[in-house]
């Protein structure tokens, strides 16, 4: 195979791997923004918390409970952590965020930003600012596979496939099911949906929980790959915001497609001019906004 092509494909795979993380995170942000009109600045910190919770479940919880043999592994974490993070999200929405609806959006923005700082503070205190390794990668996902053009870590391949399935599932849930129809109606005219007899407040709490749960899920998937630090969400969240803006605020399809596309683009740009890889997202954002101010998949408001 042409070595150049091989390089592009290899970087493309790594880019795609980043892209699926963008997708999982921007998906949650888009779902939350669509229904609540809240820009959740804590999203990156919730992702980070998800990664740390996976570590805690594996390495610490046993000791804390006095059961030193207990290691709650990756597969269990994949279920438990999103639930824990979702519960945290729902409590946060129910008891704090709820009071700010109808006020200037700057209040909810500051609240979620503050929550991010608090979460980061907690984990810096507990684990320090440097990276903590996740030792719980399951045996089935250890090792590498030969993709023909490169040797690719099995676990990364798993995250790509798993995340894409999650994205398709979420898209289906929101665009093709009755629950999704109620959600979409709620984003459009919550007062009327309420008058039809649907408890929109509860729907909002559940949706916020769902969006934050997705961030937690992304955190678990990230723990074995990226270095787990209290600031890991910070680096990512800026890119995620750019993606949500490019895709069109609140658009599920836009968030997913843009994430995967930009992940790939970053990877390919790395081949040709590595220093530009980190800025290409923002260049894309500027270009898209010049042509389509409401984003690729957004509706003109």
């Amino acid at each position, binding site marked *: 195979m042409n070595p150049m092509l091989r390089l592009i494909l290899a970087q493309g795979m790594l880019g795609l791997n980043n892209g699926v993380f963008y997708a999982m995170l921007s998906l949650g942000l888009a779902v939350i923004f669509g229904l609540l009109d809240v820009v959740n600045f804590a999203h990156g910190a919730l992702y980070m918390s998800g990664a740390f919770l996976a570590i805690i479940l594996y390495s610490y919880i046993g000791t804390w409970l006095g059961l030193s043999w207990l290691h709650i592994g990756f597969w269990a974490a994949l279920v438990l952590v999103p639930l824990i993070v979702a519960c945290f999200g729902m409590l946060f929405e129910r008891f704090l965020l709820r009071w700010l609806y109808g006020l200037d959006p700057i209040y909810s923005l500051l609240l979620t930003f503050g929550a991010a700082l608090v979460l980061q503070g907690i984990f810096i205190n507990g684990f320090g600012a440097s990276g903590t390794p996740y030792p719980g990668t399951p045996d089935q996902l250890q090792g590498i596979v030969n993709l023909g053009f490169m040797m690719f870590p099995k676990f990364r391949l798993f995250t790509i496939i798993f995340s894409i399935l999650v994205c398709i599932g979420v898209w289906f849930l929101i665009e093709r099911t009755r629950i999704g129809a109620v959600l979409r109606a709620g984003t459009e005219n919550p007062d*009327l949906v309420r*008058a039809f*007899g649907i408890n929109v407040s509860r729907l909002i709490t559940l949706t916020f929980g769902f969006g934050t749960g997705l961030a937690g899920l992304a955190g678990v998937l990230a723990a074995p790959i990226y270095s787990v630090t209290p600031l890991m969400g910070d680096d990512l969240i800026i890119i995620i915001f750019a993606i949500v803006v490019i895709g069109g605020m609140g658009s599920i399809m836009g968030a997913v497609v843009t994430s995967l596309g930009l992940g790939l683009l970053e990877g390919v740009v790395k081949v040709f001019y590595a220093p530009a890889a980190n800025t290409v997202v923002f260049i894309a954002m500027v270009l898209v906004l010049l042509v389509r101010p409401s984003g690729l998949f957004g509706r003109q408001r």
Partner: protein
Amino acid sequence: MSTPLLQLRDLHAWYGESHILHGIDLECAEGQLITLLGRNGAGRTTTLRAIMGMVDRRTGSIQLHGDEFIDKPTHRIAPLGRIGYCPEERGIFSKLTVGENLMLPPMVGPGGMGLEEIFTMFPNLRDVRNRMGTRLSGGEQQMLAMARILRTGARLLLLDEITEGLAPVIVKVLGEAIRSLKQKGYTIVLVEQNFHFAAPLANRHYVIEHGRVIDTFSAEALGANMDRLNQYLSV
């Protein structure tokens, strides 16, 4: 006399600081149709919205089957009162298909209309199920807004200006629909500008001005009072 199905007593309502309803009193017996007439801005829409809990604040009494609803949260009102509400702006959801719009409101009681019955009443809806809601004509949207509350088993229908801006053929279909609903025993509160549409259907007319009921006529007394009514409604 038995208790009326719907009874409003001294109903006040506010949007923010604006005090819009200043003590509405009216009632509607089961199976009857009443109209709320009045000039633009009189407070007829607000009366329906106050019943549904869609105002910022409301006081007084709203009784349905003798139960008090004034303090009920909005999402409990339709199911507990078996109410179907058709808003003035129709409220068709643009992000939902016609089919999804139709199936959106949850059931509020037994005996809702089946799809076949609905399509017989509104034939225009039969072939457009997969279109997006707002891709329909105004008349089709109005039929959809009616159809989706008939599915739910609601027995009290609050209908706000359902003929507004529609072609005569559509108005005729809607008139037929209301007539057949009345025959089926539905209780209906109709807000209308189109007096000729409303007059032959109603048992009683309420004239509203500045958030109060300023007069009421029974259907029989209407002929004798046409002059007065025209005066109320003239601009």
